[in-house]
């Protein structure tokens, strides 16, 4: 919910537009299995993600319902840290003032989140919508 739409909407649209184009493309270029294991603590990272830094505000509680999606995370830990400290996009906040340990913990938590996206055709509601849209004239 945005109180000041003129700012809120604009910024959130920029966030969505810029981050969607900038991050996932890079993220998806690497398979998660090729990444080294995280060094941080996923349990502490959950607190950072949900409470301290509130990453969920943009990315969703599970890192998947917002934009851009963080799960599956395909960036290495070092690239992740470099990015969040000095983002390449205007919409993404800089987390340069956050401790390295907190960022490593957040990364570990993101890596621990299971992907929760069933195949669309396996969900009757989504399949029904797809069928209706396919038949729409």
């Amino acid at each position, binding site marked *: *919910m*945005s*109180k*000041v*739409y*003129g*700012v*809120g*909407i604009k*910024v*959130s649209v920029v*966030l969505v537009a810029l981050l969607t184009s900038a991050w996932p493309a890079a993220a998806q270029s690497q398979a998660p299995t090729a990444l080294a294991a995280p060094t941080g603590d996923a349990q502490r990272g959950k607190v950072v993600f949900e409470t*301290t*830094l*509130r990453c*969920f*505000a*943009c990315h*969703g*509680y*599970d890192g*998947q*319902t*917002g*934009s851009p*999606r963080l799960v599956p995370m395909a960036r290495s830990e070092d690239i992740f840290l470099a990015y969040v400290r000095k983002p390449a996009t205007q*919409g*993404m*906040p*800089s*987390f*340069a*003032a*956050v401790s390295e340990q907190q960022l490593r913990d957040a990364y570990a938590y993101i890596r621990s989140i299971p992907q*929760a*996206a*069933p*195949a*669309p055709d396996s*969900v009757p*509601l*989504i399949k*029904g*919508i*797809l069928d*209706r*849209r*396919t038949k*729409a*004239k």
Partner: protein
Amino acid sequence: MADSIDRRDFFKGAALGAAGLVVTAEKAADAVAAPAAPPVTLPTDPHVHDLAYAQAQSTVTTPPTRVTTQGRPASDFMVDVLKKIGFEYAAINPGSTFQGLHESLINYGKNTAPELLTCLHEEAAVAMAHGYAKAAGKPMLVAVHGTVGLLHSSMALFQAWADRVPVVLIVGHHRNPSGVINRPHSAQDMGLLVRSFVKFDDEATNLERFAEAAMRAYKIAMTPPMGPVVLTVAAELQESMVTNEPRIPELVVPAPPQGESAAVREAARLLVASENPLIQIAKLGRTPKAWDLLIELAETLQAPVDTLGYSSWQKFPSWHPLYGTGGRGYTPDVTLGLEVTDMSAQARAARASNRKTISISAEHLFQGSNIHDYGRYADVDLAIAADAEATLPSLIEEVRRQITPARKSAIEARGQRVAAAHKAGQLDGIREAKYGWDASPVSVPRLIAELGDQIAKDDWAIVSGHQFTGDWQRRLLNHDKPYRYNGDCGGFGIGYDTPASVGGALAHKKNGRLSVAIVGDGDLNYSPGVLWTAAHHKIPLLFIVHNNRAYHAEVMIIQRMCGVRGRGNENAHIGNVIADPDPNYAQLAKAYGMYSEGPIEHPKDLAGAYQRALAKVRAGEPALIDVVSQPR
């Protein structure tokens, strides 16, 4: 009041009864012994209803309304004027500055056409009128108290202004105020308080002028570009008596202007010759006719239709093959804007790359504004100052006339490419609903998809805006009728959705449509009292609270600002979060007498809750489901 009771006799009795009530105990014996008060001698001056006369009377005599039992109150005449205009409803929050009109509406006017809607805040009253006007195609009357009521109304008047939506508001005041309460409710220039964002305001100083000003106000509100209007009516005038009754003029709303024929011909020439035309719309769709006309134009040209997001009324079917921007790589060489408030960005981009822009809009007739919503100067190639809806028939005819067989085949080929690209993109967009499908809190697409499943066999209408549900609504629900979606607030200020949805639902009630509003928790908290209005007036409407427990866009904004200044991000939630304690909106609705369920945190619980709530709505009641949701 029963028809068999003579109104004047009733007034006599009521006044005598009221006189008895105000007699003090000490004077009771005298009062009983005193002879009945002589009948009031009504003024016979033909200008008795003039404000100056009323003022003079009020300074030298006891206000006549306190004992008036005979004659015709001026506010009864006002009701006749309002009835002639044809208002179905009047949304009010009561106040003494329009007590005369209020009494006339409920007794003389028998509380029908207009029927009073009791609102618990003036902003809610005007926002209800805003939503109603877009769904009904005509204004609702609003009546508010002098200064205080108008100031409470001001935000919603601003939204109606920015959304180009007609609202007719009457505000009372005292021309000759006395006492510490009345004086602050009066103003030298009442309209000044909101003049920056109303299209017209006037003060009626006598009944003849009231009749003309009311007709004029309605006419101006409904003439494109439409907008809210304010009519100030002094309490002294309302409570004066009619002698020589003025004639009530006919309501004449002018036909909206059509585009000049040569300019329309040139627009058609550019569009027919274009390889990649694009149609953009915003405040198009004063009437349902625009829906069919736009489809006809788009299909004749096989041109994609871009509905331009949040500020648009979005009057084009969302699953139509031409709904969209043409697909990846489609670069428009001619962009036609229909009632697009600000085309400056399109015009600048087009001029930089030798492309063309056309604007057909009543916006070109705007006289000026203190608000910058009209945008930057747009140096389009062809500007037609006209109502786009009224111009569409001649534009379509001209386009048809100019299409040669050779162009026709090129146009058809384009249409096939565009339709294929749109379909693929829209199916991909629907598939994205899978992310977080079983997540708790509930994802926005799940919230909408479950709703769509439950209302698939209803004639439904979404009466809230969609800023905070993104474009999921149009992705997952087929907006195949002009009333499926009622547009957003216009002015990008929060607090519109909840009350405007009640107004929209009221308009749909008589057509038997099932109204649904998806409102944010932030929005609901601005005027929750409108839930009571919906319950009290039995306005069927399903509220779904998209309860993400924060102003989440602002969380992101402050996070970004924290990052820019390098001072840590852990405080970004302060001032933005609506939690601890977590408001319970289902309990709030229950307190206002509305059926409700929630908070619902797991998507598996949605279907049952919707089912039970929709049963109430289909039976004619409002209901509310509080869904704890993902931020966006």
